[in-house]
């Protein structure tokens, strides 16, 4: 791994940017202007940012309900995302999708959807299209530990391995599916990456998922493996969401997880740790940190202003748009 100082600063910048955007959403949420469920990635930024670093803009990516960080790390347009959560016509789906449906084809982010496991086979199909094109792009499928339990995961992985498709699975294992812990859903001694290896993918595990450089290391290696035409790669990353499953608040008080567990992850917060490291190694100084923070703050303020000033879609859009229209060509039509 060859990470320059500039790379280090970029990684820090991207993690902080995603954190601050998500926190701004949480802060503004009470205003009742974002009237749709949000699943915040706060705590899980390292994996997302590392994947953005390992992937190219031209690579495809698909994701699930907790997709803000993936979309942003891949380079997705911030204004279009915030406007989408506000239901505005300038949103990335014209207000038809909301937080759980993000798309920015200009950076290869081909869609996130709300049903657990739903985009896994779609990513596999995109991977097959790349193989048919014979180009050297790859498709990244973001998923969580819950999606592993869906039948479609096995079906998709089986087909991807069978066809040796250029697909990189990034599984963020954050230990919970809504409020249900992993040990109530999967056998204790069976590791996700080991099961996947048995099905035939090349796998890697990052236990220190809060360490952005550890994530970069694993994801760069695996994306290079996939890009070289070797077939499917799968990286499992242990991580943790700080806030509630769905919504802007904390939910440690309801009793589904131990406060000690939460605090142990918080103590290893990816952004704080990385900031400390960059300062210690004199890669960045406090002034520069301050500048970065203000720059991001200004960008976020602009995005919220853009969203609030944007209009809702015209009312005709509530009752139209079902079908794509055919581009007329010359054909013999008979009845």
């Amino acid at each position, binding site marked *: 791994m060859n990470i320059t100082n500039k790379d280090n600063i970029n990684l820090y910048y991207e993690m902080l940017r995603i954190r601050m955007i998500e926190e701004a959403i949480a802060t503004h949420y009470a205003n009742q202007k974002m009237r749709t469920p949000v699943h915040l990635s706060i705590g899980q930024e390292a994996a997302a940012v590392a994947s953005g670093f390992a992937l190219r803009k031209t690579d495809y990516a*698909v994701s699930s309900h907790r997709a803000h960080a993936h979309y942003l790390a891949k380079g997705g347009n911030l204004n279009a995302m915030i406007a989408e959560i506000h239901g505005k016509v300038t949103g990335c789906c014209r207000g038809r999708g909301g937080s759980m449906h993000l798309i920015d084809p200009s950076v290869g982010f081909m869609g996130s959807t709300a*049903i657990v496991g739903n985009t896994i*086979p779609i990513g596999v*199909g995109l991977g097959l299209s790349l193989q*048919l094109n014979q180009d050297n792009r790859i498709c990244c499928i973001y998923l969580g530990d819950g999606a592993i339990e869906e039948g*479609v995961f096995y079906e998709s992985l089986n*087909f991807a391995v069978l066809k040796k498709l250029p697909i990189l699975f990034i599984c963020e294992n954050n230990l919970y599916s809504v409020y249900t812990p992993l040990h109530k859903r999967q056998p204790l001694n069976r590791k996700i990456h080991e099961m996947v290896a048995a099905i035939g993918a090349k796998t890697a595990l990052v236990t220190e998922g809060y360490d952005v450089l550890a994530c970069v290391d694993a994801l760069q290696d695996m994306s290079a493996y996939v890009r070289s035409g070797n077939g499917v790669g799968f990286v499992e990353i242990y991580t943790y969401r700080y806030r509630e499953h769905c919504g802007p608040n904390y939910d440690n008080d309801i009793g589904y997880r131990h406060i000690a567990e939460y605090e142990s992850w918080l103590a290893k917060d990816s952004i704080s740790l990385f900031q400390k490291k960059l300062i210690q190694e004199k890669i960045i100084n406090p002034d520069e940190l301050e500048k970065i923070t203000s720059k991001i703050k200004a960008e976020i303020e602009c995005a919220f202003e853009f969203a609030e000033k944007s209009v809702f879609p015209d009312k005709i859009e509530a009752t139209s748009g079902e079908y794509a229209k055919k581009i007329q060509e010359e054909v*013999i039509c008979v009845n």
Partner: protein
Amino acid sequence: MRQLTYTAAINEAMHIAMKTDDKLLCYGLGTDDPKNIFGTTLDLQKKFGAHRVFDMPTSENAMTGVAVGLALGGYPSVMSHQRLDFFLLAMDQLVNSAAKWHYMFGGQYNVPIVIRLILGRGWGQGPTHSQNLQSWFAHIPGLKVISPTSAYDAKGLLLSSIRDPNPIVFLEHRWLHNSVSEVPDLDYEIPIGKAKVVQQGTDISLVGMSYMTVEAMRAAAYLSQFNVNCEVIDIRTIRPLDVDTIFDSVRKTKRILALDTSQPMCSVASEIISRVSGHLFSQLKSAPQLIANPDNPEPTSFGLTKYYHPTAGDIVARVASMLAIKIPAMPESMRPHDVPGDWFKGPF
């Protein structure tokens, strides 16, 4: 003109479509096996290569999602399933992905996929190999649902379905597979969303779909001997439904009997009756009616299916009652009640 079977017409449409769009893919369990999905995929792999025509794992849900991903990546697909009932495993990808993608992402992408589902009745197919679930699919905005009756329509509708930018559920009744009609060897399309008046008439509109159109024609032929002139309509497309053609017919005949291949609850026939009642109630001379299967699962036993599926004889009796006239019961067909013809010897 040249005559073709329904399956040969489907196969010919596939050859034309694969030739005119070099991005089009064709897959499904059994696509290149010795039986070629009842002959419908015959020689496709030989002609267009294993990268475009291939067999697939028994993974209906994932493969439907793969079709969505392929479409987003620029490759339209025709995916075939030998029994509709197995495709029920794919509802997430059909309903949440394929049907929604265009709308949900603000119209940025189209999802051109044709999903061929073969359905049927009789010969012991039983509760889970015979379901005609057209009304399920018809309920979902974003899908188009096609159900051709003749070989001629099957070819033209398959070509227009493949060239449509939307996801399409293409339903083929197994009992129609060996039926024959005139089929031009041209590349022709039949518009989606357009019903066909199969026979003009003045006394009653029989609105059929798929195999029930065949039973309707049998009933109409018999009824004509008693000076009852039936207008027979084959709806051909289930969603979007061509209500205008149905309304025009009922304005003329003032009576409607809708014929379904499935159970009556929330059926396509009940939808047709609802639309006609809402729009033309005051013009009707008798209560609009429908004929469908009994409202319980299809039995397997030869001894039971006889009392399960509606036939031309049931249509004749119902028409007589709606017209308040006496017509002798239609003689029963000589062939066993559970096969479409002598060609069908099972097993599926």
